[in-house]
């Protein structure tokens, strides 16, 4: 079998007696549009933290391009192309939108520690950041302070920072969380327009978004892989509907 772009093998993690990841074998293929769903407390965000190296697994392995990255620190994995966004905005609120992305781009280009030349004169960094804003249609807000933006736009900045890292794998942790429905189309468009060469794993509660976006869906329940398949397979899976989708899709 050819190695997946990102893969976990028998990944386990427990906090005391609580098993938050239980023998998870998961594959994310290159260029995938993959969704991870599951009820609250299923361990979805923990799974993202395991993939990105924020927490270490109790046992099991994480492979990127067939290479074992289980022991690599978070920063190393970012350099190898794993980027993430956060369920709750983690932005540089006092800085402008452009600067938020510049910080990420500078780190990716290994220019973040430069002490002499002013940041504003590093044109390759600034131009790249402007290009990212362009793809997310955020250019008009480039000069505005993040804290002044409406929440929906702030969610886009979350994604812009991650894209500034030129990732191969993008992990979106509930990108639509907290966005009023009137604004959610901005985010849907942005996610639909992500470059095809990036493999995207989206964790989401909004089933409309999941079924519109995903070509493959994984269901996680109590830290265990419960089901996996195409959207049609998952929607037709009676156990999944009982466990997770519940009355919302039945009725």
């Amino acid at each position, binding site marked *: 079998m050819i190695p997946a772009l990102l893969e976990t093998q028998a990944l386990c993690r427990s906090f005391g007696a609580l098993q938050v990841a239980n023998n998870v074998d998961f594959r994310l293929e290159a260029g995938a549009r993959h969704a991870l769903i599951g009820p609250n407390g299923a361990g979805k965000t923990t799974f993202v933290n395991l993939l*990105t190296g*924020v927490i270490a697994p109790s046992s099991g392995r994480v492979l990127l391009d067939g290479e074992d990255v289980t022991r690599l620190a*978070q*920063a*190393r*994995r*970012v*350099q190898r192309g794993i*980027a*993430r966004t*956060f369920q709750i905005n*983690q*932005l*540089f*609120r*006092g*800085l*402008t*939108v*452009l*600067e938020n992305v*510049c*910080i*990420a781009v*500078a*780190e*990716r280009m290994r*220019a*973040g*520690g*430069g*002490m*002499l*030349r*002013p*940041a*504003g*004169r*590093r*044109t390759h*960094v*600034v131009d790249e950041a*402007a290009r990212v*804003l*362009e793809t997310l249609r955020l*250019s*008009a807000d*480039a*000069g505005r302070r993040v804290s002044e933006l409406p929440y929906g736009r702030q969610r886009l900045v979350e994604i812009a*920072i991650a894209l*500034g*890292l030129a990732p191969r794998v993008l992990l979106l942790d509930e990108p639509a969380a907290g966005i009023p429905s009137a604004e959610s189309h901005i985010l849907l468009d942005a996610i639909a327009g992500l470059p095809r060469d990036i493999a995207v794993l989206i964790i989401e509660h909004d089933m409309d978004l999941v079924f519109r976006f995903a070509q493959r869906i994984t269901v996680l329940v109590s830290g265990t892989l419960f089901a996996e398949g195409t959207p049609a397979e998952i929607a037709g899976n009676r156990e999944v509907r009982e466990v997770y989708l519940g009355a919302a899709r039945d009725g």
Partner: protein
Amino acid sequence: MSALPALQALAARHRLRWWEALPWAAGVACFFLFPNYLAFGTQVLVTILFALSLDLVLGYAGIVTLGHAAFFGAGAYTVGMLAAHWGWTEPLSGLVAAALVAGVVGLLSGWVLLRTHGLTLLMLTLCTMALLEQAANMFSSWTGGFDGMPGLSYRPILGLFEFDVLYFRSQYLYALAVLLLCFAVVRTLAYSPFGRSLTGIRENVLRMHAVGAPVHARQVTAYAVSAALAGVAGAVFVQATGYVNLAVLGLERAAGVLIILILGGHGRLYGAFVGAVVYMVLEHTLSKAYPTAWQLGLGIGLMLVALYARNGLLGLGDALRRRWSAR
């Protein structure tokens, strides 16, 4: 392209503005206007430099420390002991030695301390300073102990300008020149990608980790540079006054510089200037006018600033200007 104004703003941000000449013009003007106050003026300049060094860690990197006088003291004792024990009285190389010693102390203590944050970090910075203070007290054959080392004298600056014991003329200009040089360093750092990444760490450390930044290394670097600059401030203080004692390492100095920076406005380069001048001039005049109750006036003033001008006097100026232009 609609992003253009934002790009231009970013590309122009680090440029010198006309008003940035004002502090230096004022500094030179004071030399001619107040020839009898140059000893006091030298103290103000040293304090500005000390507060500026603190701004790099507190204002930019968001590292809250109560022990910054440890590095002021390290620099001060370096030039003091070099002069007293080895006759090393050349001032400029003394500054370099002070910067090195204080920088190394900052590097080592920062490497250990900056794994913690919040109150733990605050207490540990305080403890580090207390340790150094006790060391200076105990090893009295080297440091002069409680009495310190009085009567130090230094060779002329560049071999030309004698230290002026009576009127502090050369000391004042010397301190002004050193301040200008150190300010150039801090300003360059503040606008560099390194400085921006410190701001990123202050604004959201979780995100800095997630974009792959070596957070701890950046913090330790900033801490060491800041310590070196604080050491230079301490060294100028000793060279100018000709004595060093335990007060250079005390909590009073550490807390004082913190108050000064917050009073002026942190994270904005010129807060150190405004804070030091306002605080020290108030202290000077109030203590003369009301020798018994002057601290009360200063305290009330600081409370007003803390309550109504959270971003310091410069922040207050910004708010007033915004209100003015909104009309």
